[in-house]
């Protein structure tokens, strides 16, 4: 019944719209208009709307920055993240003016040069000089961006020097949870593979490998010492996942059959970040950022950054693999 009424209502609306339009057109024809030509008045209105839109668009942009600016990620909690953020700001400094200036020209010209029968458009079909200028200027700007970008990229992707003090953690993804394994006192991760998965050994660590014995498997959260480089090794046992740690400006895919890596130095403890963000409940997180199945939207693990002493205390409490 409701459906029937709805259908009839829609039909009536369409029919009345058709009739209204038809009448409007007949009326215009009666007044001697070529009805599909854009009238002078319409053209003026549209030109004016160009300006209105320009202003409204910029206002909307500014409003969003003002309203949502402080929802953005807080200062970077990793060493390389500072480089990332600086590069982002350099890029903004380049693209926001480009965005603003080109839009001003676009909509201003559209407004200014609206049709006027007393004027002739200028036949201006090319100018090698102009075209050269606006090929060269972006080229220079881009060279700068590319150079900055590549040097930052190299810095970020350089692996941790294995001779130096560092923490080695393997993170394993699966639908829809994370497991982590610390390398233990020998600083080496034992062999692991899907063929060893059995019962409690969810990470598939090879018991026979000597290096495995002192490895420490943790679930639910990982702890990191502030100021010490952390070398992550990522694995997945089913589909592709992605380990995303936005506060550290860090992300790496977890790919079944392939080991991937990422490293960073945490610089701000969880406690300090609570103060910086003015949020008692603040917690660093690791979340999944590659579509991986129905519960992709809820695949997370907490990260706690603390002083080296606290970290070592926590680690000492974790059981070695051999003890399980």
């Amino acid at each position, binding site marked *: 019944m409701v459906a029937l009424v709805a259908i009839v209502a829609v039909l009536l609306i369409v029919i009345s719209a058709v009739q209204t339009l038809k009448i409007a057109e007949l009326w215009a024809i009666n007044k001697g208009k070529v009805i599909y030509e854009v009238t002078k008045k319409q053209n003026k209105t549209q030109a004016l709307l160009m300006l209105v839109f320009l202003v409204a668009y910029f206002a909307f942009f500014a409003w969003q920055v003002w309203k949502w600016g402080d929802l953005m990620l807080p200062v970077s909690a990793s060493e390389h993240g500072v480089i990332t953020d600086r*590069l982002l700001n350099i890029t903004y400094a380049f693209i926001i003016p480009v965005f603003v200036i080109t839009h001003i020209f*676009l909509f201003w010209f559209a407004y200014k040069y609206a*049709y006027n029968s007393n004027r002739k458009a200028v036949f201006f079909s090319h100018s090698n000089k102009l075209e050269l200028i606006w090929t060269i200027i972006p080229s220079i700007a881009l060279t700068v961006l590319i150079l900055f970008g590549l040097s930052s990229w190299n810095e*970020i992707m350089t692996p941790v020097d294995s001779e130096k003090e560092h923490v080695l953690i393997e993170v394993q993804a699966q639908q829809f949870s994370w497991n982590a394994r610390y390398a233990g006192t020998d600083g080496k991760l034992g062999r692991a593979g899907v063929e060893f998965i059995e019962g409690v050994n969810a990470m598939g660590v090879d018991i026979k490998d000597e290096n495995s014995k002192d490895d420490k498997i943790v679930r639910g959260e990982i702890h990191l010492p502030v100021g010490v480089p952390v070398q992550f090794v990522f694995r997945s046992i089913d589909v592709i996942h992605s380990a995303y740690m936005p506060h550290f400006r860090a992300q*790496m895919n977890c790919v*079944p059959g392939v080991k991937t890596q990422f490293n960073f130095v945490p610089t701000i403890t969880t406690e300090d970040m609570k103060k910086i963000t003015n949020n008692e409940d603040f917690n660093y997180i690791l979340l999944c950022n590659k579509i*991986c199945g129905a519960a992709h939207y809820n695949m*997370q693990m907490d990260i706690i950054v603390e002083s080296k002493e606290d970290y070592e205390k926590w680690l000492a409490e974790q059981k070695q693999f051999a003890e399980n």
Partner: protein
Amino acid sequence: MSATHHHHEEQDFLFKYIFSQDHKMISKQFLITGFLMGFIGMVMSTLFRLQLGFPGESFWAIDFFLGSWAENGVMAPDKYLALVTMHGTIMVFFLLTAGLSGTFSNLLIPLQIGARDMASGFLNMLSYWFFFVSTIIMLISLGVEGGSASAGWTIYPPLSALPQAIPGSGLGMTLWLVAMAIFIASSLLGSLNYIVTILNLRTKGMTMTRLPLTIWAFLVTAILGVLSFPVLLSAALLLIFDRSFGTSFYLSDIYIGGQVLEHSGGSPILFEHLFWFLGHPEVYIVLLPALGITSEIVSTMSRKPIFGYRAMVTSILAIAFLSVIVWGHHMFVTGMNPFLGAVFTFTTLLIAIPSAVKVFNYITTLWKGNIIFSPAMLFSIGLVSTFISGGVTGLILGDSALDINIHDTYFVVGHFHIVMGLSAIFGMFAGVYHWFPKMFGRMMNNTIGFFHFWITIVCAYGVFFPMHFLGLAGVPRRYYTNSEFPLFDNMIDINELVTWFAIVAAFAQLLFVFNFFYSALRGPRSSQNPWRANSLEWTAPVEHIHGNWPGEIPEVHRWAYDYSKVDENGEYVSGEDFISQVVPLGPNEKDGGH
């Protein structure tokens, strides 16, 4: 009426409207099919926007459209992914590849180069029918057990390979792959036809440098398609093997559903390389026709030659060339060699140069023009705006060091919808408004067109601009809801606002639908050259006739952009502000190098 006569008429109907080999009819078939798919894709997006804006709330509309995919009016998490996947697939391939290229390449190539039809009308017909079959299979896949494909439009294995991983990777995924294989065949048939036609069937005097920019764009698009779609086909075939015949191209070391799979030795990264070797050129396959269409419209409606014709052509070629060597920018965080990442950053950022040139040339074309704001012109100006707004954020995403932190977040969703989705759809709308008289012999209503444009552009930015902020706050894409993370709790306002804009945008498209059908059936009849344009299609009669021109095909004597050309005394050379391509040069007229 005798029986045989009747039979004859039926046959006529069948060959005129259904199995037509006439490029003008095939173009309309592509348009209608593409728009229908686009409409479905849009409804899907509105539904999943409801879920994102109001997570977990029950909606009548969700219940009505989704049925068993949504219990009590709340969609299931895996069905959210199914919708997103099908939305992306439909929009990119069915609306903006087949719908856009299929419509306008078919309509305009023969008419603008001065040919009686495509090189092969039969292959052209096949191209449409392959597309049609692919459409049907894709739609059927929505109703099968387990649901449609749900692994994202990028269908990365192992997720797409294993039904254990997500229900949509069962029969739904098989049908997706079959549909896409047929789609690719359709695309190849079409593209080869376009290329051959443009290269071989130009009328006398139509040199390459006299081609309208539309044709250049269609030509380069077709070449890109021929180069890259076969790679997607091979990627899909290997995936079919992995799924159905136990091979291990993409699979290795997998433990799922309590057991270790036999597959070993493959790599999902291989699939990503193959996919993006098509995937990135694909965004230009979507975009270039829109750029060609709007170049033509901006020039015509500004009553000015397009500025820097040769630079425009060079930019199209440069963009196309670069677009096949940048695919790795989708894979910066897959663990690929950092040196490779550096190379891809370099090539990617280079694309900004020809893109910037195009933008500056558009803007200079407006400068000192005499602009008529037809709805087509509005959408063309809109395209320049979206191309800029979405293009500049590409400099962030293309920079590997920055991409680490925003890869796969909503920043990406905002970026590609604006630069590719909006630009291409604006180009498509512009094309329909502009060439509607060529298709249907009638004109669309301007007033409705004005409303359609302004509501659409306002809502479009309202939907996609805020997404950048979500992304910068670390919100991942392809999430069923953001409510599981305290971190994202205060994002709910943004999500609600976006959803409201999306709903209004969707309803605003009904204005277009109404205008389209009303005008096609009852709109005012068009004159032969309603926009007073130069290009060749406007010399053909309004009524569609087989072969396009009665009698001889006109000869071409100049390029398509002699608008407002004046002589030494400042008077229009032709007495009007345009000179058709078929008009020979005057005795004292310079040809401007074309």
